[in-house]
């Protein structure tokens, strides 16, 4: 019964925070307009879009829509698109936000060429916690990408309910 209670609580919280599904639009430096502009960018750029660097939304354990993950520290992946040939990532920066849109944690610039299954760099998720994450990357050509569109991750019921 307690498990069911927790589940219903989760559903209720989800509904409560549903309007944040597109990210915290009234907070921090990212706005709805900017996000829409990013969303319109083609997923597959070609060489004629000279050196335009973008980064696709972060995935969690390879999932784009990571709802109810059975772990507190999902690994992060993202992919960059650019018209620059021989492009390699030299650094990245990740930011996380609470479901209410408050900045939760940030990594600062990390010197690394890793972009697939990067270990969770933030405080572990608690049961049912929802977090929004975005990334930006620096390339060998020195260019920095815009921030990715926010993507969300929500942990499932991670620990047994205690009476």
């Amino acid at each position, binding site marked *: 019964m307690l498990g069911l209670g927790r589940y219903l609580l989760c559903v209720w919280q989800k509904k409560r925070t549903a309007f944040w599904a597109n990210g915290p639009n009234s907070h921090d430096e990212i706005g709805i307009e900017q996000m829409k502009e990013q969303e319109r960018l083609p997923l597959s750029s070609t060489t004629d879009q000279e050196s335009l660097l973008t980064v696709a939304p972060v995935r969690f354990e390879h999932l784009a829509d990571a709802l109810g993950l059975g772990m507190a520290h999902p690994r992060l992946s993202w*992919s960059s698109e*650019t018209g620059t040939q*021989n492009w390699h990532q030299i650094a990245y920066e990740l930011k996380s936000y609470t479901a209410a849109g408050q900045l939760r944690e940030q990594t600062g610039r990390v010197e690394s060429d890793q972009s*697939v299954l990067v270990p969770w760099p933030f405080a572990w998720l608690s049961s049912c916690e929802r977090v929004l994450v975005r990334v930006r990357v620096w390339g060998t050509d020195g260019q920095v990408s815009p921030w990715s569109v926010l993507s969300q991750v929500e942990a499932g019921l991670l620990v047994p309910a205690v009476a």
Partner: protein
Amino acid sequence: MSYEAETAYALVLQFGLLTDPAQRHVAGRRLAELVRKAGYHISTGFLGTPLICDALCEAGYETIAYRLLTQRGCPSWLFPVTMGATTIWERWDALQPDGTPNPGHMLSYNHYAFGAVADWLHRTVVGLAAAEPGYRRLSLSPRPGGNLTSASVRHRTPYGLAALTWQLADGQFSVEATVPANTTAMVTLPGQERFEVGSGTYRWSVPFSARHVTLDTPLGTILDDEVAWNAILQTLTSVIPGFSALDPAVIRNAMKGYDEVPARAVLGQMPGSEYLLPLIEQALMETHQKEENDAADRSY
């Protein structure tokens, strides 16, 4: 091998159960002989089908693998297509050549298993594969073969979209490739040294002509080349009275054990060979010319 079957050899080779190169060579050759004996019809089931083309290619019998792929008689991958199939069937002959359903059990007309050849199509025929787990390094190794004139694949890797397309026209082999950002690719084009590229979209073009067989080609390789072998049979038919009445299986049986011997040495044992061999040589030359012309025609 207590029971000689194509699946048995494919499993032993692809699962690495044989490690001694000499043993692997013999197993590969025996696998090729079994496929030839089966008239280039597939005779593997759920277990051998995903492996047989890889096993043949790695043993150096790429021509046989492509011939299996393009076979239309029953059983084969394309036989169901000739019967109107748009799905993969659970049995090679779920519909039999006369159009009636197979009387046996397990008769699904939508069954993935034999479709496993698609993996080989992606990795080997088109030539897009992971050079290491996770696709951080790609392998681009397009391989024209059989009578295929183009092939194409797109794969969404964790780093983004990878794509490879090739086309064969007018003696030119043209390749277009997309390598995702933050990855590299090892590229092997026909007749070229391997080279490495970074991310981006590329176009390459190299001259290409299909290998053609002569009398100095091993007999087995000529057998694998349907057009060349038919040219030889036709020549023999036109010269030797009663040749056409011979059962192909009888002819094949007479040549058993000579697969690795140059055709000249085998056919040279026939009576009147001093007269026959130049005729066969001429027929093979004409076949090759015709293929080149057809390829040129197709490109217009």
